[in-house]
């Protein structure tokens, strides 16, 4: 088995709006290795969410190839794509997207419930996961009783529930203060270390970028630059921290 967990080749995705065709993604090539933390940066409307959705099996490409953990996503039917999302990917969203009527632990149980894991087993695992993200004390709280940072940590626990090889985050710190953002990024790096989980994180946030091994920059649906951690560190040393934004844009 190759070490490439995600393999994207010549990927294309168009949206049809009446007569107009919007090329949201155009000739994208990228690879992500197992255990990597990869960032995707770019201006608004550049296609970051679209790319993440295609990798996560939420949207189908209109051209090119995408394989995740050995599965060719462009060949999967709707049902199988859903099955793929349930077992192979975890999602973290900007606004956490917890089910508002379910408690923290119940939210973490949802993916396992959908997968048919028996109650005692999923309860045990949900507790463990909440302990890992530091939320075991709040497991019976509803989302509305938690802060943004706390909700996002519950969301991370939910994303881990079915032990997916890859977790996708769309602006995971977009709604968090810098302290919570740092805490979340720390959690992500620890998870990668302990579980070899791969992360792909769409972001604007320098805190996230600093924690990534590699960063792709996209513009108008195309990859324009690629940075490694060394590039990032080098840039930081020479320009000073505040100008990291310049690197990204």
């Amino acid at each position: 088995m190759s070490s490439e967990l995600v393999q994207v080749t010549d990927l294309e995705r168009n949206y049809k709006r009446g007569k107009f065709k919007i090329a949201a993604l155009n000739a994208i090539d990228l690879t992500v290795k197992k255990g990597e933390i990869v960032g995707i940066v770019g201006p608004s409307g550049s296609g970051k969410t679209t790319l993440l959705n295609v990798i996560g099996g939420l949207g189908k490409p209109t051209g090119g190839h995408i394989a995740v953990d050995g599965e060719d996503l462009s060949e999967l039917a709707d049902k199988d794509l859903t099955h793929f999302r349930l077992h192979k990917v975890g999602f973290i969203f900007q606004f956490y997207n917890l089910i508002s009527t379910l408690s923290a632990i119940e939210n973490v149980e949802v993916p396992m419930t959908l997968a048919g894991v028996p109650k005692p087993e999923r309860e045990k695992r949900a507790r463990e996961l909440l302990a890992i993200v530091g939320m075991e004390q709040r497991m019976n709280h509803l989302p509305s009783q938690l802060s943004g940072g706390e909700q996002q940590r519950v969301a991370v626990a939910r994303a881990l529930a079915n032990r997916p090889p890859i977790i996708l985050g769309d602006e995971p710190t977009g709604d968090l203060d810098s302290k919570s953002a740092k805490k979340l990024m720390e959690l992500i790096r620890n998870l990668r270390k302990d579980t070899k989980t791969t992360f792909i994180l769409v972001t604007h946030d320098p805190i996230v970028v600093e924690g990534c091994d590699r960063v792709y920059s996209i513009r108008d649906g195309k990859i324009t630059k690629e940075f490694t951690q060394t590039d990032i560190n080098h840039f930081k040393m020479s320009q000073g921290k505040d100008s990291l934004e310049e690197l990204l844009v």
Partner: protein
Amino acid sequence: MSSMNMAVRSLTRRKTRTILSISGIIVGVTMILVLLSLSSGTSASTTNLLRSAVTAQITVTNSSTPTLGGLGGFTRPSGGNFGSGGFSGGNFNFTRGGTSGGFASFFGASDTIPQSDSNTIEGLSGVYAVSPQLSASGYVDNSSVLLYGINPSSFSQATTGLSISNGTMITTTGQIVLNNVIADNLGVTVGDTVVLSNNTLSTTNTGANYTVVGIFNAGSTFGPESRSAYIELSDVQSITNKTGVVTEIDVKTTNPSLVHKVVSEIESSLSGVTASTGSSVASEVSLSASLAIFFIVIGGVALLAGGFGVTNTMIMSINERTREIGTLRAIGAQKSQVLRIFFSESLLIGALGAAAGAILGIIISLILPYFSSSISSSGAFGGLLGGRLATSLVASNILLSMGLGVLVGVLAGIYPALRASRMKPEEALRYVQ
């Protein structure tokens, strides 16, 4: 089962909305149950009411006897039911009969049926009372009359009876009740003795003595009824030498709606007879039927409104939860699983509404009769139902109303649940309130 758990959470943690949509079902189920209880109670009380107020609904005669007038035809005076059209059968026979003193040929033309037929009819289900009758021409104090031989007890059960103005109805043989016109003509009154014969009196035909026990009004001074007299059935049979036969059998059913069923049962179990019904039967049946339909329509409309309420709140709720649905689909919920979650919600709403509605409906059905005395006398129903609101709780009605409630919840949930399951996850996730 877990989709049911999620549905339970969703309902219990959005109490206001849940109560709102459940209340629509509760109102509908309660109304249906109360209305069904009223309908059952009413039809029970009106059946009793109508049974005593209405004359026999079925007349059984020999099938070769013309029965143009149907029930109202040439039966007997039954209160005000004495329509002029009712005598067409009699008139027809009368003119056909021709010569020797009209009445004789009139009755001579009537073919008889075995008296035992009345026992057969009594054995049929849905039959309330059976009155065999033999009519014949005869002479009272040498004056021509129509003689009706009846069985006093079954006659009073099966018909509205005679309107006796003086004295009593006959109870046994040897007694006679005379029409007031004949009584006036003959100058006899209650307690007098008259001579009854099958022909004009002569040395060979001396007749027999009968005691006049009552005088009745036929309501008309013309026509055959004004010259009628009632005696015991066996008396007519012996006078006319027609033992064991009758000219007609009047039948009253336990419930007006059973008339047509009883008619066909009579005709299939007896040969050579015709069972005919009058037009009054149709109106009785349609009265109780239209009352029931009226009740069902009101309840149905209420439940339909409740159903729309459920659909409406479900759609609102689904629109609000678009992102939640998108999230569920994103993290791996199949369309069918989303469908099940939302369908469970509407099923629960239907079931809870049905249970609460049934309880409320039972309570109202039980206490309604106690309040009815104050409202029924003035209300429209008061007049219709003879001044009382009767309810009757029937298990099948409770189950029916609950079943309808659950059904409405299920039906109301189909569209919203389908809509939720068909949302495209990618677009649902982009959705911002």
